[in-house]
């Protein structure tokens, strides 16, 4: 079995308090699969503070463990929040603004 250099994770639907606990475990596990984790957010319809926290935690953990985390294909819901909370710099990803 070859070790993949990049691991992909797709998150869909509502990323909120109801999923936050599970999400945390899922994302952290995914993070440790490979040196680089990419999370695809195209299908995220809703993001609340709890969901955001998990993503922020993942980012910080990645940095601490010398891993990489990239958020991709931010859906409008995600863009909205990243912009409002000025988290572009925090996550360090290029945010493509979809029309």
């Amino acid at each position, binding site marked *: 079995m070859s070790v993949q250099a990049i691991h992909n994770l797709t998150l869909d639907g509502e990323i909120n*308090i109801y999923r*936050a*606990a599970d*999400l*945390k475990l899922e994302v*952290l596990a995914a993070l440790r699969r490979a040196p680089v984790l990419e999370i695809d957010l195209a299908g995220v319809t809703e*993001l*609340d*503070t*709890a969901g*955001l*926290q*998990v993503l*922020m*935690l993942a980012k*910080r*953990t990645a940095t*601490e463990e010398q891993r990489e985390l990239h958020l991709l294909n931010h859906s409008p819901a995600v863009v909205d*929040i990243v912009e*409002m*909370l*000025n*988290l572009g710099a*925090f996550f360090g990803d290029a945010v493509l603004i979809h029309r």
Partner: protein
Amino acid sequence: MNLDDALQTFITESRELLEDMENALLNIDLAGDQSEAINAIFRAAHTIKGSAGLFSLDHIVAFTHVVESLLDAVRDGRLVLNDEMITLLLSCCDYLTGMTDGLAAGRYDADPDTAADGEMLLQQLRRHMGMESEAPDAHAGALAVQPEPDVERMGGDAGDSDYWHISLRFGAGVLQNGMDPIAFLRYLARLGRIAGMATVADALPPAADMDAELCYLGFEIAFDSNADREAILGVFEFVQDDCDIRLVAPRSKVSEYVELIRALPENPARLGEMLVLCGSVTAAELAAALAQQSQSETSATPDHSADIPPRLGSILVAAGQVAPVVVEAALNKQKQVVEQKAQENRSIRVDSDKLDKLIDLVGELIIAGARASVIGQRLHSTELQEATSTLSGLVEEVRDAALELRMVKIGATFNRFQRVVHDVARELGKDIGLAVDGEDAELDKTVVEKIGDPLMHLVRNAMDHGIEPADVRIAAGKPARGMIKLNAFHESGSIVIQVSDDGGGLRKEKILAKAIERGLVDADRKLTDAEIYNLIFEAGFSTAEKITNLSGRGVGMDVVKRNITALRGSVDVGSSEGQGTTVTVRLPLTLAIIDGFLVQVGDSVFVIPLDTIEECIEFAAEPGQDYSNLRGQVLPFIRLRSLFHIGGAPTRRESIVVLRFGKVRAGLVVDTLLGEFQTVIKPLSPIFSEVRCISGSTILGTGDVALILDVGALLQAVDGKGAALPALAA
């Protein structure tokens, strides 16, 4: 805790607090030291506000907030209390009482009918405080808001920032409580423009320790908006318990941002960065201010540091210290105040229904105990008699203790009159004061409840008709200020309440003339002064030249008398022309149980209240005469057999029970004396309401019914008939 119970408690406690407020306001000595009173009033208002906030009673919170602000200003010395303000605050008390009553009736928001009054009061309050704002304070819950900090002379230039700076630290549980901080930020954005934003994630713990359902985030926001402080705080109303909110107004001095930094938990350098990031301050300003601060400190400390002083926490900002949830602190404080009060009283609340039930049961206990005694006597069993004697003794003690529970001091009732006198005096344009004596006199709670209205009427009457206008008083050589005096004391088994005034007194001739005119007395009847004065209690009598708003409107002295008689009491009036009038109300101490003395006439057994009996003597009188010789004094007597038309012949050795009620002393001729007996008063059916001399009935140990004599009525009957007899030695 059941919400209804909690709300009930709130209503009861608020009423008490409002009463305290009113009393304190009325008793403030404008010339002397007011600080204690002001503090008490402030605490009361503050407690009501806080508790109302717990129930989200916004209308009460908003109103009380403004009142509290005014009181705060007085407390700090920024405002001086004057007469006008006291009257205004009294009106505010009334308005709050109205809202509390509304709450009791099920109204949980402002009553539109009285909203205008409330608005007017608020405007007056603001006027006193020098604020002309139109908008009512809507959001004044227990927020963790930092008040405008004291101005410090450093970084003294006004800041350039045109923005509000909002600092938010959400509490850990905010998510679990169903709130989403992001949603609040969105809402905030509707009030203006978020010009700068920094998300503070410093509290986010390592992954292993992070609980995904707790909140670790905070925000520093530069907010461009015309909204005022209240509006901004209002955005966070629903999360105020779960969030630390600090506001710095636009164009605040840099020093204030420094204070903010100090108040926040994070590393000051980071905070400084964030503030700059927000755009609330420029890097240069901040650096300068901080440097200045450290300079002033280094002179005091051996530790020099060019960087931001490490001991930021040591400089305390007045209210900003309470970090996590200031709400808790506010609540604790309120709890403290309430607990303090509770400790002062060391009493508990008892449902009055439960108390009544207890008294009933004690009554039945007495009857059952009496029955046991009778059986013991009948069986001639010494052992049983001893046991029942012990039982009776204990039952008597239980009875006394139970009755004690129903006794309340009349002081509370008297104190209500302070307000009445204050308001009525203003209405009449007279200067009238109230002196109160005997506040510790106790009486049965049901009597207290029912005596309030008649007393109120007597007081108003005295103020309206008794006290003359100031010029008349001065011309008569009296002080311009009229005095009403309330007095209470115990006398021979009754409680006596006197309402006196130092006014013009009653005019005998006028009263007599009016009575004759109304057909209440015959023109040729000779009446004593006392009888003339008491004519004012006859129905349809009113000699006031003008019927003023207060006491002339259909509620006359006859109604007062009727109410008092219904309580088995009596009322009397004495007067001295030019000097004043005194109305004396006499009431039984309790309506439930009395110590009695049994007497027998023919087959009938009667109970005489023990407190009215002076002694018992053998019957001795000349035939045809209705008085006896009691150690040299004349004692008129009543033959009960005759009075009650009881058939049969009297026993050979009759007895006289010497009775005293107030100032009247007379004897009662009976067949046999049967001894003491504690009795439970069973009220008589209204079918007997015309029987004047009987006040109630009781059940003896034998199961028979005995009637309780109304000694007052009996002796009044004597008085009326005793015109031909020589005067009594009192």
